[in-house]
């Protein structure tokens, strides 16, 4: 039984089953998915990332949550105190672990399963606005299968007092977590959303999350993602945002975990919109970490700044693909993208593919890519000050990566990303003792 067939057996358990529009949408998505399957390396956009192991391995949604004590520990460690949080354990919303006390009436932060009961029309208008099933099989799969997710609506001019955290923990072997998050900010609204993905050690599972973001004119969203799942996890995360006029989207993405993980960050920029994408990936062990970004300048005068740093050590592999598209009417576009990479071993590999597709004539677009190694001169300098070579290498690697970590404005999240970075530095015996 493949996934598409399997879908038939679970479809009635999925949230919103009684909503005919949703049922129709899911059925169509399942047909799309069964036709296309998961993306394959034959598709240009997936050239470097072969996910056939997912096809072969069967992951199934877990009905009951896994080991509650394992989950509790991970949650305890990763839930950020100063946030309103929605916690998902193996793809299932956990009210008990979530923290929403003090949430004002005017702001909606709730699981999508509940939103489908309380505000089905609103969900209807938001779903599939920024993400499109036809892009590739993962989005179709997600649309057909999503079991839960977050529903966040910030009305015009509202600024929630706290950041919002979406904390995902995977605890069950062979588990399947399919999540759909919807985020909508009204005119001049502002918010910070932090997506955290962590997993129980050694758990092999599949996480497939799609986040759709709708930013009305002059809205401002700071969005963070930390992917630090367990060594054997497959992770797909798609973040798709639609920025209306003068909306601002700042995204910072840090990827360390999983066996094979891909994050897509695509944004559509309206007139005078601003978009900052910052990111860091560190592919150690035998990991494969793929980041795929597309910034589509659709309106004139929009500004985008993209800065990614990648590190691959041992037999790790990193992929960065950054595309900037400038539509014909997007005059005065100002776009800059750079990607700097560090290879720490002979067996490590990083493929970087920047692409500019410019259809307007009065634009400023720049991009740069470097792939290098640690500087022997710098290593020697540190050694000459009494620091052993392994620590020196660690220090320099940390320094390279930490510049991206420093950009994170939320203290708790920054600390978690830094901890994950330190834990994944290659010379594990010496990590951090110089901090």
């Amino acid at each position: 039984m493949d996934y598409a067939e399997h879908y038939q057996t679970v479809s009635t358990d999925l949230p919103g089953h009684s909503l005919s529009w949703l049922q129709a949408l899911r059925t169509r998505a399942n047909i799309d998915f069964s036709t296309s399957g998961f993306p394959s390396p034959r598709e240009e956009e997936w050239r470097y990332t072969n996910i056939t192991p997912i096809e072969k391995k069967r992951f199934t949604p877990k009905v009951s949550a896994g080991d509650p004590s394992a989950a509790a520990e991970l949650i305890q460690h990763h839930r950020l105190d100063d946030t309103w949080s929605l916690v998902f354990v193996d793809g299932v919303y956990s009210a008990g672990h979530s923290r929403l006390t003090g949430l004002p009436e005017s702001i909606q932060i709730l699981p999508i399963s509940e939103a489908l009961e309380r505000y089905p029309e609103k969900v209807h208008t938001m779903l599939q606005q920024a993400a499109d099933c036809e892009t590739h099989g993962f989005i179709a799969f997600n649309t057909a299968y999503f079991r839960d997710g977050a529903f966040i609506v910030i009305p015009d001019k509202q600024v929630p007092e706290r950041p919002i955290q979406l904390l995902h923990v995977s605890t069950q072997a062979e588990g399947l977590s399919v999540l759909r998050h919807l985020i909508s900010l009204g005119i001049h609204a502002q918010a910070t959303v932090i997506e955290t993905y962590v997993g129980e050690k050694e758990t092999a599972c599949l996480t497939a999350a799609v986040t759709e973001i709708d930013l009305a004119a002059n809205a401002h969203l700071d969005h963070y993602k930390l992917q630090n799942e367990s060594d054997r996890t497959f992770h797909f995360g798609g973040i798709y945002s639609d920025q209306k006029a003068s909306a601002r989207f700042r995204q910072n993405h840090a990827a360390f975990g999983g066996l094979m993980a891909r994050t897509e960050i695509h944004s559509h920029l309206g007139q005078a919109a601003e978009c900052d994408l910052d990111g860091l990936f560190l592919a150690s062990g035998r990991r494969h970490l793929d980041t795929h970004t597309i910034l589509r300048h659709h309106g004139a005068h929009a500004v985008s700044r993209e800065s990614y740093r990648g590190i691959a050590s041992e037999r790790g592999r990193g992929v960065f693909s950054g595309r900037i598209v400038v539509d014909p009417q997007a005059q005065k576009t100002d776009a800059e993208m750079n990607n700097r990479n560090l290879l720490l071993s002979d067996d490590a590999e990083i493929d970087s593919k920047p692409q500019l597709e410019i259809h307007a004539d009065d634009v400023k677009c720049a991009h740069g890519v470097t792939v290098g190694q640690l500087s022997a001169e710098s290593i020697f300098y540190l050694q000459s000050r009494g620091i052993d070579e392994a620590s020196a290498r660690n220090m320099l690697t940390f320094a390279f990566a930490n510049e991206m970590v420093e950009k994170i404005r939320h203290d708790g999240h920054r600390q978690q990303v830094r901890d994950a970075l330190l834990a994944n530095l290659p010379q594990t015996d010496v990590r951090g003792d110089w901090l």
Partner: protein
Amino acid sequence: MLSIKNLQARVEDKAILKGISLEVKPGEVHAIMGPNGSGKSTLSHVLAGRSGYEVTGGSVTYQGKDLLDMKPEERAREGVFLAFQYPVEIPGVSNIYLLKAALNAIRKHRGDSEVDAMDFLPMVKARIKSLNLDEQFLYRGVNEGFSGGEKKRNEILQMAILEPSLCILDETDSGLDIDALKIVADGVNALRSPDRSFIMVTHYQRLLDYIKPDVVHVLAQGRIVKSGGPELAHELEEKGYGWIDQGATA
């Protein structure tokens, strides 16, 4: 303190040090002068243990131990310090981190406990003040965006904090303005003690007016061709290197 015997070294296939012998006793200050490209920095680097140089002959004994047998960090922990002619910039590693990590590595090697944060910062601040550097430098990346003179002063700051036994200063005076030269020289003089030795590579007599050397050597084409007292530096300042028989050994 340091005994170099017939040291020969090459880079790739090019012989650069062609038999250098030098005895430095505790408390002594040796100046090494010599034309560009004669091998002064190479000697400094070989003493500090930089890779890329192949030692093809001779020996270096430091405090009774075979220096060439030690890794660069071991040499540093044993008290060898090189102030670089061209200090590297290391963005992302702050000066204060480096100072603390270096000091702790050295203390650990000596069997001392890690430096206490309460003692460390005031000590560093006192030193940085005496070198006329702004405290903000501590929180910037190592040498990142520092001017040439600031980098040199930063080297001396590290030296003052790590308190090495053998200080090798490779053209620390180059690129310093007159006031900075005085400050750096005062910094070095403050560190002079009967059990600390200095090797100062310089092109200028001026530094030696501030820091009085015990011996002055001339290094030319990979050999020490002349050694003498402080007056040798004056003579070189006047006459250049041409008059020295470069084939001779001192």
